[in-house]
């Protein structure tokens, strides 16, 4: 049996203790009763986590979601005209589909590359769904934020976003992975299944196209 001793805090004098308690409670909320399990699992490799999830510890999937929501979030936003809502739609669908098909990931140690392809395809689906809408009522680029006071930066950001939309799909993806995600060519090759030389060529051409579109701003 667990004995819980109530602690009485005086709000007038125990500001710090109350604040610390609230912070701890908020931090624990997303983990629920599985908090310890998730903290311990957070240090584990993708492969180990996938195997444990398939063995029934499905709450551990949250670790993979958080890990790759951070890693692929900006990629998705950049591939979807900078629209974070579309990026969220694409990622959410990708994570759910990846969960459904997790048993078909034959090499759990390469979960990241497997998931990347699903994310890429879901971005493609969302982009297709939005294509007509975008042509009539273009989703506002993040650089078009009307609250932004820095007009020059706003103009440059918008110009880069517009220039990226004009690139070929393969140039855009390679460019985003290199310059938005900051990945090495080796890492890009591993994720995309394309040779490093070919990726370099795509990025180099993308930069030249970008330079052409940004004439007068640089």
């Amino acid at each position, binding site marked *: 049996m667990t004995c819980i001793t109530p602690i009485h805090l005086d709000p007038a004098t125990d500001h710090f203790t109350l604040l610390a308690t609230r912070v701890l409670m908020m931090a624990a909320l*997303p983990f629920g009763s599985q908090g310890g399990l998730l903290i311990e699992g957070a240090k584990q490799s993708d492969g180990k986590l996938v195997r444990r*999830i*398939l063995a029934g510890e*499905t709450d551990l*999937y*949250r670790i993979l*979601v*958080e890990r790759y*929501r*951070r890693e692929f979030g*900006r*990629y998705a*936003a*950049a591939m979807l005209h900078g629209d*974070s809502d579309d990026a969220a739609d694409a*990622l*959410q669908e990708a*994570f*759910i*589909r990846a*969960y*459904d*098909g*997790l*048993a*078909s*990931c*034959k*090499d759990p140690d390469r979960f990241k*590359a*497997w998931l990347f*392809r*699903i994310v*890429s*395809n879901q971005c*493609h*689906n969302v*982009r297709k769904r939005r294509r007509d809408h975008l042509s009539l009522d273009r989703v506002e680029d*993040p650089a078009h*934020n009307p609250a932004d006071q820095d007009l020059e*930066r706003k103009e*440059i*950001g918008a110009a*880069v976003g517009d220039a990226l939309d004009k690139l070929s*799909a*393969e140039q*855009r993806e*390679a460019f985003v992975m290199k*310059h*938005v995600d900051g990945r090495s*060519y080796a890492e890009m090759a591993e994720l*995309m*299944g394309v040779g490093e030389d070919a990726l370099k060529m795509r990025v180099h051409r993308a*930069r*030249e196209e*970008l*330079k052409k579109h*940004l004439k007068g*701003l*640089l």
Partner: protein
Amino acid sequence: MSDSDRLSHDVQRYLDGEQVEHLDAGERAQADSLLAAIETYASRLEGPGSELDGAVMQAVRVKPVPTAHGSWWQWLLQPRVVSVRPALAAAAAVALLVVGAVGVSLRQRAGTVEPTAQAEIVLVRFELRAPEAEQVTLAGSFNDWSPEGIELVRSPDTGLWTGTLPLSPGEYEYLFVIDGISWIPDPSAHAQVDDGFGAANSVIVVGPRGVVRS
């Protein structure tokens, strides 16, 4: 593209993050201004926040533990090799006729499309030669790119993987998934389209009378 839009080999190396010792001052300034513009754009991009984690887990929590079996309809759609004793052959033939009468043709021929009794549904056979693969699945716009895909069956002699899918007339994009990792287009498809993200998807067009372009 004019020559003035070109970036020299050294500038490209510099932009790649390599050490370039003797870069012209003008070229360095040009490269730095391009990098600054890219950084301005990138710094304003926002990926989804942590609320996404909760939304995904809410959807996932009501699902069973993922297994390799897939859904029941996928199981039904998988072509199988069936051995029938002669005594049962007649009964099997009758059973096939009954199934055919309700609009599902079980006859499969490589690379063909079979219009069914119901003109809206066409059976399309997909095949891929991959003798080294341990598993081949099919994913495409017809199953919303589900990574668990539709499992194909391997012919032990030829290494040919095949599967038949009932599709409504329309245009579909698809890929084969090898061993659950490698997504590849169909080498025998007549059309490949840019998937919008740097790779190609195969295209198949199913017509109302079973006419197909792939």
